[in-house]
């Protein structure tokens, strides 16, 4: 009786679909209660998880729930411009927060942390002892110039001189879309050396750190601002202020960031 069987199967499928959709329409409670999001650059993840925990622990009980959303600074900026529900934005470079401010989407950005570049070297590459030795590395990995870490690395190499930059560029085997992936390539042995933030290396004792001369360092600042379309402007502003509080500055300093207060 194939026809009957087919109809039964169709009916079964239909009933299953209805039951399933019903179950999906009402989710667990904690998901329906809307948190308020702080948008932050990926490199701030460890610091912001600690800082937001501290912020919420000391906040009044009636405060709404805070959550963090991490991504590339420029992606987050574009999303806020198009209506993303961020109450504050923390960017890994001045450029993105300035653009957001210029468009009227956030208040005046505040400098809340600094960073600096270092040379990360794999444990086996003993030949490299200073930044000047970099052209002697076999395989170099850098962040792509489209992301802040790549742009800073480019600035740093250019300051050292055109011939140095050219010699280094010859040895570059990969431009990564994310500074953490630069670190990962050196860790895995796919590259000998790369330019990363000092904050990327704290949790990675396997890599050797070679300091880069302060004169070659570009200005690396992290900026935060409350957004203007925010549903919780006061909460956003308080979070930005909290970034400058001594406890937050201590937290960031312990992760390698430079203090601003």
């Amino acid at each position, binding site marked *: 009786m*194939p*026809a009957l*069987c*087919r*109809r039964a*199967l*169709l009916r079964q*499928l239909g009933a299953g*679909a209805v039951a*399933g*959709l019903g179950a*999906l329409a009402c*989710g*667990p409670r*904690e*998901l329906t209660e*809307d*948190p308020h*999001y702080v948008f932050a650059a*990926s490199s701030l*993840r*460890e610091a912001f998880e600690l800082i937001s925990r501290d912020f919420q622990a000391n906040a009044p009980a009636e405060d709404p729930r805070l*959550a*963090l*959303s*991490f*991504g590339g600074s420029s*992606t987050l900026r*574009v*999303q806020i*411009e*198009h*209506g*993303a*529900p961020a109450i504050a934005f923390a960017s890994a470079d001045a450029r993105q927060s300035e653009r957001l401010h210029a468009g009227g989407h956030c208040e005046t950005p505040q400098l809340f942390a600094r960073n600096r570049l270092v040379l990360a070297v794999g444990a086996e590459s003993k030949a490299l002892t200073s930044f000047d030795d970099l052209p002697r590395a076999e395989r170099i990995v850098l962040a792509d110039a489209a992301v802040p870490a790549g742009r800073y690395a480019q600035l740093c190499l250019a300051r050292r001189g055109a011939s140095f930059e050219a010699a280094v560029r010859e040895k570059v085997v990969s431009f990564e879309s*994310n500074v*953490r*992936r630069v670190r*990962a390539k050196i860790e895995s042995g796919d590259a000998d050396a790369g330019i990363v933030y000092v904050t990327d290396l704290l949790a990675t004792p396997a890599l050797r750190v070679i300091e880069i001369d302060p004169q070659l360092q570009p200005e690396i600042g992290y900026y935060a601002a409350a957004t203007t*379309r925010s549903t919780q402007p006061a909460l956003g502003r308080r979070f930005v202020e909290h970034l400058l509080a001594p406890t937050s500055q201590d937290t960031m300093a312990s992760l390698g960031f430079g203090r601003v207060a």
Partner: protein
Amino acid sequence: MSARRGERLGLSFALGLPLLVLLAVPTLALLAALAREGLGSGLASPQFRAALFTSLRTSTLALALIVGFGTPFAWWLARREGRLARVLDGLTQLPIVMPPAVVGLALLLALGTQSPLGAWLDARGWSPAFRSSAVVLAQVVVASPFYLGGARASFRRIDRRMLDVAATLGATPGQVFLRVTLPLALPGLAAAAAMAWARALGEFGATLIFAGNLPGRTQTMPLAIWETFDVDLDLALAASALLALVGALTLWLLRGLEGRGERMRGGSR
């Protein structure tokens, strides 16, 4: 299923072997991660539990929309031969060749607060961007071409004479569609739906841009894995294995349905 004599199946297999190895490598790596970490660590993390729920919820809703609207449209595409049908057919397949991030950006430009439509929706509190409805929309756009393509092909395979016979026996067009066309096409529709669902479950690029990476709201499994990847590779791998397992189980179930459908046809082909 035994090979006919004279067919060079051994050679075909040998030529295909590199591809098989390449396909097996990531699966084996995931299985190794699963053996090392266990399913527990993926499930124990509240972030991944929430993300898995978001993923299952959004991809199922997306599938319901795709099948609900896509089945009649695929039928229309299968029966129409004109230029309009050909153009529309091409348009529906376009998202397959577009990078998902571009699809996400296009959705954001079309429905974000900067577009007239998005602003109008936003003023009424209906803006879909950066909500779970954005996840569903991104999944529908990226996955529906797979369903439409498969469903159209499945409808085209139906012998038209069967439909004519049903009509001459007095069935109304509606009855023909529900009692003859749909059951005959069902195995193909199920396979196409499985493909579309799997694509929706794995959707990453369009979701990241259009829905944002908002934990507890729009963060699906692929987004949570991407975010964890830089911090805890092993946890990200365990979660990937979990996702792969859920996906494999569902595909297996759907394949079972498809097989059941085939058997019902009683070897009519």
